[in-house]
C-alpha cells in the first residue's frame, strides 16, 4: 500500500511537477537573471492585468523573448515524443522516429529552397515555414504512394520512407552545393541543425490550430494504437479497420511533426529516446504512454534548450545537443537491456 503511494507521488513529480518547474526556471534564468519575487509579481501582474513591477526589461524579457521560446520548446517536445512513441508502436520498430517516413528531409529541402530564393525580407520567415511544411508533407505523400503498391505492409512503408528521405537528403546536399557560401549556406546549415531561437508568437499561432487537432486525434485513438501494435492480422480480427486507423494515426503524427519542424528545424533523437524512457517508466500501454511521452518530451526539450541558452555565449543549436545527450542515453538503455523488445 505504502509502495503504491510512493510510486504515485513519484509519477506525479516526474510527469506533472517536473515540466512546471523547468518552465519556471527557463523563464527566470538566462544571461539576464530575474529573481523569484520579481518573477512572481510579473506573472501575477499579467494575470490580473496590472503592471506590478516597473522593471520593463524583465517584463519584456519574460513575455517577448523567453515565453515564445518556452512555448516553442513545449510544442516541439510534446509533438516529437508522442509521434515517436506512436510510430515505434505502429511500425513495430524500436528505431522508428517521427522522421521515419521522410518528413524531416522533405521539410529540410523545403526550407533550403525557401532560404535560397528568399531576399531576406520579413516575409521570408513565413515563406521558409510554409515551404518546409509543404515539402515535409509532400515527402510523406510520396512515401505513401510508393508504399501503396505491392503488399501494403508497414515494412514497405518504412522502406519507402527511407528511400524518399535519402532522395530529399541528396537534394538538400545539392542546394547546399549551389548556395552562396557566405550568406545562404550558413542559414541553411543552421536551420537544418534545429533551433528554437527564431520562434515567435506569430509562428506559434500559425501552427497551433492544426497542432491541437492532430494531438487530440492521437490522444483519443491512443488505446487503438495498442491494438495496431499487435500486427495487421490481429488488429483486423479485433474489428479494427487497419487501413483507416493506421492512415488517420500516421497522418496525425506526420502533420504534428511537420508543423514543429517548420518552426524549429530538425531536432533529432527526442522522438526516439523519450518514448523509450517513457516506456521504461509506465510500460507499453499507449493509454499511459502517450501522456507520459507528452510530458517527458516537454521536460527534455525545455531542459536541453535551457542548456543551449546558458552554457555558452554563442548559442549551440538545439538539434545538436539533443543528439549529443540523446544518443548516449539510448546506448545506455540498450546496454542495460532496458529497451525491451521481443
Amino acid at each position, binding site marked *: 500500500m505504502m509502495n503504491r503511494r510512493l510510486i504515485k507521488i513519484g509519477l506525479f513529480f516526474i510527469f506533472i511537477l517536473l515540466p512546471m518547474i523547468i518552465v519556471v526556471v527557463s523563464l527566470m534564468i538566462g544571461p539576464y537573471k530575474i529573481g523569484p519575487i520579481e518573477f512572481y509579481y510579473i506573472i501575477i501582474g499579467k494575470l490580473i492585468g496590472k503592471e506590478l513591477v516597473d522593471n520593463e526589461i524583465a517584463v519584456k524579457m519574460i513575455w517577448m523573448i523567453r515565453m515564445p521560446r518556452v512555448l516553442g520548446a513545449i510544442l516541439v517536445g510534446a509533438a516529437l515524443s508522442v509521434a515517436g512513441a506512436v510510430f515505434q508502436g505502429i511500425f513495430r520498430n524500436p528505431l522508428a522516429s517521427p522522421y521515419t517516413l521522410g518528413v524531416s528531409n522533405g521539410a529540410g529541402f523545403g526550407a533550403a529552397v525557401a532560404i535560397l530564393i528568399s531576399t531576406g525580407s520579413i516575409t521570408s520567415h513565413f515563406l521558409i515555414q510554409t515551404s518546409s511544411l509543404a515539402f515535409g508533407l509532400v515527402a510523406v505523400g510520396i512515401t505513401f504512394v510508393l508504399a501503396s503498391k505491392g503488399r501494403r505492409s508497414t515494412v514497405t512503408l518504412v522502406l519507402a520512407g527511407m528511400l524518399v528521405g535519402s532522395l530529399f537528403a541528396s537534394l538538400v546536399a545539392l542546394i547546399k552545393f549551389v548556395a552562396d557560401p557566405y550568406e545562404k549556406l550558413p542559414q541553411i546549415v543552421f536551420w537544418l541543425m534545429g533551433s528554437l531561437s527564431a520562434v515567435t508568437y506569430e509562428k506559434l499561432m500559425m501552427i497551433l490550430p492544426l497542432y491541437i487537432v492532430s494531438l487530440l486525434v492521437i490522444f483519443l485513438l*491512443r*488505446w487503438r494504437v495498442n491494438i495496431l501494435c499487435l500486427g495487421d492480422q490481429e488488429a483486423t*480480427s*479485433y474489428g*479494427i*479497420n487497419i487501413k483507416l486507423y493506421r492512415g488517420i494515426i500516421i497522418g496525425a503524427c506526420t502533420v504534428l511533426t511537420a508543423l514543429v519542424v517548420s518552426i524549429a528545424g530538425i531536432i533529432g533523437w527526442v522522438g526516439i529516446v523519450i518514448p523509450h524512457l517513457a516506456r521504461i517508466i509506465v510500460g507499453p*500501454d499507449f493509454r499511459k504512454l502517450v501522456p507520459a511521452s507528452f510530458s517527458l518530451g516537454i521536460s527534455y526539450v525545455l531542459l536541453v534548450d535551457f542548456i543551449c541558452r546558458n552554457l555558452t555565449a554563442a548559442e549551440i543549436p538545439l538539434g545538436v545537443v539533443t543528439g549529443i545527450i540523446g544518443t548516449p542515453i539510448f546506448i545506455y538503455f540498450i546496454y542495460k537491456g532496458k529497451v*525491451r523488445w*521481443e
Partner: protein
Amino acid sequence: MGMKLEVKDLSFSYDGCRMIFEDISFQYHTPAVFSILGANGMGKSTLLKCIIGELKARSGSILIDSIEVGEYSTRELAKKIAYIPQNHYPIFPFLVIDIVMMGRASRMGYFSNPGKEETEIAMEKMEFLKIAHLKDKPYTDISGGERQLVMIASALTQEPELLILDEPTAHLDYGNQYRFIQLIKKLTLNGMGILMTTHYPDHPLELKGVSAILKNGKMDVVGSSEAVITNENLTDLYDINVTVETFGDKKICIPGGPYGELKR
C-alpha cells in the same frame, strides 16, 4: 439461431497461374466443430484467410448468414468471427488483461477506452479459461500454451459466433494439446462455432463434428469426422500407411500401421 457459413465454388491463386485450390464448396452451421485436414502447403491457411476476408478469392463466394464476406465492415465481421493466426509475434510486453480487453474493440465507441464493463467481461472470460491469475503478467513472459489461452480469451471477449483457429495445437506440448481439445469441446457445448485446421487427425476424432480433407486444391471429402478419418483417406492424404483403430470408446490413428511397416 447460430451462424451459417457457405463457401461456393471458391478458387484462389497468389500469382494468377498456379491455383492453390479450386472450386471448393461447403456449408457449415454453428455451433459445431469443423476441422480441415491437409498436407503441408495445401492451402489450409490460405482458405482461412479467404474466409476472414484478408485474401480475395479469384472466383466463387463466401457467405456469412447469406451476406458476402466482402460486404461486411471490419467491425461488423469481428462481431461474427474471431480469428487466431497460427503464429503470433508479440513485440511489446502488454499485460495479459490489456490484451484480453482488446477483443472488445468492435463493441465499443469509436473513441472510447475500455472501462469497468470491459474489465469485467475480460475477467469473466479469463476465469472461464482458468487463466485469471495471469492477468497482471506481461504476455511476453508467459509460456506458449498460456499465450494461446490468452489469445482465446481475447477472442471470446469479442463474443463472436465462430472462432477460426489456424493449427491451434501446433505449438502445444502433449498435455496442453489434450487440454486444448477438451476446451474446444466445452466451447462448442456453450454454443461457439469452431472452424480449425489441424495436422492431427486424432483431434477431429476426439472432437467428433465435421471434417474435410483439402488435397491437391480440392476438397472432395467432407462429412462426419468418423466417416472422413479412415484408413484409406489418411493413407491417401499423407502418403504413409495409417490405421484407424477403435480402442475402448475412442478411435485413434496409428501412423505406419500397427506392425512397424513405414511405407505403403
